[in-house]
């Protein structure tokens, strides 16, 4: 699975993107955030407050209860501050 990070999520994780094999039991966005948080200090820092993280699947905004089925690209980022 291709994971992409933006803004302070990217800075804390320490990379802009990566390919990860997700365990079979990681089925929803929320599962992913919980699992990812356990993958090391950078992830722990980035996902300290997982409920604050916004997620896009295949470049579309997704709720935390949505399934990952069909995902090719998952992006994690803070609330947006453009405009």
């Amino acid at each position, binding site marked *: 699975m291709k994971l992409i990070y933006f803004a302070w999520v990217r800075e804390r994780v320490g990379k802009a993107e990566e390919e990860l094999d997700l365990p079979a039991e990681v089925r929803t966005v929320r599962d992913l955030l919980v699992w990812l948080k356990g993958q090391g200090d950078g992830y722990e820092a980035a996902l300290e407050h997982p409920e604050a993280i916004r997620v896009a699947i295949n*470049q579309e905004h997704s709720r935390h209860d949505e399934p990952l089925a069909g995902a090719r690209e998952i992006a994690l980022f803070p609330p947006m501050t453009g405009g």
Partner: protein
Amino acid sequence: MTARIEVRIQTEDFDLSAEVSALLAGLSDTGAVVTFSGLCRSEDGALAALELEHYPGMAETEIRRIADEAAARWPVTALCAIHRVGRIAPGENIVLVIASSTHRQAAFDAAAFLMDFLKSRAPFWKKEHLRDGSEGGWVDAKESDEEALRRWS
């Protein structure tokens, strides 16, 4: 009515008059044009620059989706959204929205709608660089921006 829609993300600055003229070329039934320009504030001289990051691909798609929704809700003749990325100094443009219509209320509403959703739904992030050389950190999202969306639902 099919509205003309233009969405761009770019590092370069833009010129307000040139963008309005290009957008409206040939649209002779347009009587009202509203523009919104978002500028980088100096924060009382403390700010050296903003750094704008975006999610390439998704940013364009998401803004276009918001513009399509605005065009479905109001009888606009044209809509344009230009968002800059990269390093932006105080006083410079960050974002431009243009909405045109036969009458003024649709142009005002469509422009305000586009800005409200662009602020909270388009994947852009701002980081501050301060004049004293330090990083001011990432700008926090504002609850008032989320509230602004509610009046449209």
